[in-house]
């Protein structure tokens, strides 16, 4: 960043007559190849991200397929009125936020503990092996994960249902009919899928901590526990805080696959498993209820935006360097 600034200052007075526009044209010509490199991806981002952003106004329209999106009449806030008049909006909001908060907090605690623990494993080969295995669940798609959960919970043949639960006096439990069990099932599934890979980031940070700190602590007679609480944890805190805050920014979005496939989209479970993403998807694809769906979509995007901005501002306040922007 420091280098080009003086150069720019130098060129400015040299071409006073051409002005800003002339300089712009010259730069475009001069850097045409680099601009050409940027072109394809710029177009793709425009299609995938920018056009849909402007499409948010659909939430204020009364869409019908005859008139098309542009031709359909405006609906004002009707779509929102319908959405918030049902109990759905409150339910999916609470579910989304509650699951995310629990996932973020427990994921943080478990990933950090796991990273610290694995760093203490003395045998290098064993440590490598554990790391390799821990990350593996993350490479399975949520569809595969849904089969795994199903293998345990199948109402008749599931491993848990057939072999474990009978030991406690339960027989033939159909978990896919019991909404109250799902916060636990989804939590276990999510943690199984993600803490291994989460701990890798913290492990990388721990290995970056200078050995000398620990050496000095050992000289002073610090126990292992003291080394962890007095050196490792304080030095990990900035990363923990930043990652958590940034995760908080995504609190209105959820892992669609987890909530849609792992629950097999079972209607009986909606009360505890429906989140904004599944609600929008179902409204759009299954029910073809564009009004409700686009209102929920708008709600999610806009609140999500303010959450990200807020989260980033908070991160910036705590540590300028680690904020996203």
């Amino acid at each position: 960043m420091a280098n080009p600034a003086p150069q720019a200052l130098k060129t400015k007075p040299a071409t006073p007559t051409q002005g800003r526009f002339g300089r712009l044209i010259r730069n475009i010509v001069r850097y045409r190849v680099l601009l050409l490199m940027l072109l394809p991806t710029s177009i793709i981002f425009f299609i995938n991200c920018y056009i849909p952003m402007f499409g948010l106004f659909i939430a204020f329209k009364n869409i019908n397929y005859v008139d098309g999106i542009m031709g359909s009449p405006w609906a004002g806030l009707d779509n929102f009125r319908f959405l918030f008049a049902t109990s759905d909006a409150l339910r999916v909001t609470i579910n989304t936020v509650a699951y995310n908060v629990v996932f973020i907090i427990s994921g943080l605690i478990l990933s950090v503990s796991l990273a610290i623990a694995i760093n203490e494993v003395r045998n290098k080969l064993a440590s490598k092996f554990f790391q390799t295995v821990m990350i593996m669940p993350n490479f399975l798609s949520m569809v595969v994960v849904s089969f795994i959960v199903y293998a345990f919970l199948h109402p008749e043949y599931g491993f848990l249902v057939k072999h474990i639960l009978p030991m406690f006096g339960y027989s033939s439990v159909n978990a896919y009919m019991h909404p109250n069990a799902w916060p636990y099932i989804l939590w276990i599934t999510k943690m199984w899928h993600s803490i291994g890979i989460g701990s890798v980031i913290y492990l990388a940070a721990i290995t970056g901590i200078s050995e000398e700190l620990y050496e000095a602590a050992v000289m002073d007679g610090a126990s292992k526990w003291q080394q962890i609480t007095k050196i490792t944890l304080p030095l990990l805190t900035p990363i923990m805080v930043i990652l958590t805050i940034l995760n908080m920014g995504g609190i209105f979005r959820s892992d669609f696959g987890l909530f849609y496939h792992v629950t097999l989209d079972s209607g009986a479970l909606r009360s505890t498993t429906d989140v904004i993403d599944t609600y929008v998807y179902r409204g759009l694809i299954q029910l073809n209820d564009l009004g409700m769906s686009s209102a929920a979509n708008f709600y999610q995007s806009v609140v999500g935006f303010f959450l990200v901005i807020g989260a980033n501002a908070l991160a910036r306040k705590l540590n300028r360097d680690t904020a996203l922007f």
Partner: protein
Amino acid sequence: MTTASRSNPYTKGSTTAQIILNVFFIAFSLACILPIVLIVAISLTNEKALTLQGYKFWPDHIDASAYQYLFKHSETLVKAYGVSLTVTVIGTVLAVLLIALYAYPLYRKDFPFKKTFNFYLLITMLFSGGLVPFYLLYVNYLDLKDSLVALILPGLSNAFYIFITRTFFQQTIPEEMIESGKLDGASEWRIFFQLVLPISLPVLATIGLFTTLMYWNDWFNSMLFINDTNKFSLQYVMIQMIRQAEFFKTQLAGTGVALMVQESVPTESLRMAMVVLSIGPILFIYPFFQKYFTKGLTIGAIKG
């Protein structure tokens, strides 16, 4: 503790602690592996044994009839494999190339439009139009329903990977190298392809592997855009299998037809065999590239 530590400052706790740690991690590793083992075991169990004894970790007799069935009636499977493979290969090659192409100008210190294009990316990470407009654009305006393009195009826009790649360029490619390339009269394209890309292999491999995984594991875009059975991806066929078997069980239960269906088609083991075949390639490539995955994550963690 003290005397032992003095002589060896790198010591990591007592032997008892080591044993406890190792036992814990062995248990944890099992927890990560065993669910996958269960799937493999079910796929290898005889259908009758399954209905009698339920899903077990160790089948009494190994029975590969589910796999035989899959390979005999494999038209759907072969097609789905083809779709997944095509999408994954084309998607990954395109994504890596485009990501590198976008990241490179952002790295160049002399490039005057750096800020603008950085900002252009950043916005996409902050704000999203969400599902509804995205879907309507793809289906109504771009007419991509039942097109493989709809499976590839969404995966090509990933701002996060671009930032990782740019960071990697900044950390590893000295400015002087570009300068000397220019002095030798190399064109921008030549500098990019012959100087920059070759030394960026670690980050390209990381991004490439992540993208491969993303495309291979993608089911969402299939679910949104594909109705034509010939264009089902592997993941989408699996979704159909877990849903539809449920469907015919509830529809035909107790009519006698159910029994026939169950006897001729090893439904339960068949589904799990399908899952095994879908994760096979991942488990196969994974151990080889694990170090890249870790490296890639580390780069991402340092600064996106």
